[in-house]
């Protein structure tokens, strides 16, 4: 499921479709408008998103409406977000260390890469 979600999110058009859907449900033709794509191509993208559990679709009469499936989106984002946040924390701590006035040197003899 996560695997499918990330595969689905790897395509810029599908990410744009998801962004649009964050504003609310839309019909397939509404989704197609901003893109220079055929309806059939949009339908294909929507199918990939649906298979990944990221969106749900519903056909009423002749109009197929697409909407975000929040549970699927959260699962996909959580794992990567967590990894990214970990890096953010590490690099912030590195920033704190580098903000100290001079290289803290418990081994004053030779800071390893000072070259000046």
């Amino acid at each position: 499921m996560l695997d499918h979600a990330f595969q689905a999110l790897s395509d810029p058009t599908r990410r744009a479709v998801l962004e649009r859907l964050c504003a609310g449900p839309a019909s397939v033709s509404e989704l197609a408008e901003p893109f220079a794509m055929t309806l059939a191509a949009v339908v294909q993208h929507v199918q990939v998103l649906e298979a990944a559990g990221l969106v749900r679709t519903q056909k009423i009469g002749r109009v197929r409406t697409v909407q975000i499936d929040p549970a699927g989106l959260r699962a996909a984002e959580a794992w990567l977000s967590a990894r990214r946040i970990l890096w953010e924390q590490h690099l912030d701590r590195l920033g704190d260390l580098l903000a100290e006035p001079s290289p803290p040197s418990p081994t004053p003899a030779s800071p390893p890469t000072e070259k000046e």
Partner: protein
Amino acid sequence: MSEPITHASFSVERTYPVPPARVFAAFADPDLKAQWFHGPDGWTATTRTLDFREGGHEVAAGEVPGEWSSRFEATYHVIETDAQIVYSYVMYHSDVRLSVSVATLELEPLDGGAATRLVMTEQGAYFADGEAQAKDRETGTIGLLELVAGVL
């Protein structure tokens, strides 16, 4: 069936008001690196080795005693002083393998070398089952962030 794998990539950027040589030293020097590259509060290191050269290995293992353990195993592939570091690494949480990744660190001098832009890019294979298993071992109470943070 083998376990499902998620492939992903992301970048994190920082600008530090120090020359590239100081940022580089924070990765190259074991004492400096240990000051920022560690687990969350309550985590203590059990193994810590850093052989910072191309082909060299790093291990940063630790635990929150009685709760969980973590292990980071890396191999350095590219090291260009003050400019570039590329390493691959495997992350374990309580002996469950979570991911195999390539991390690329690029340092760019700014303001005539007075400051440094650091860009870290990670590309990885993430084992969703590993994540689930690790969570199970924590009796489902641990959050994703805690889980990943627990690895380091």
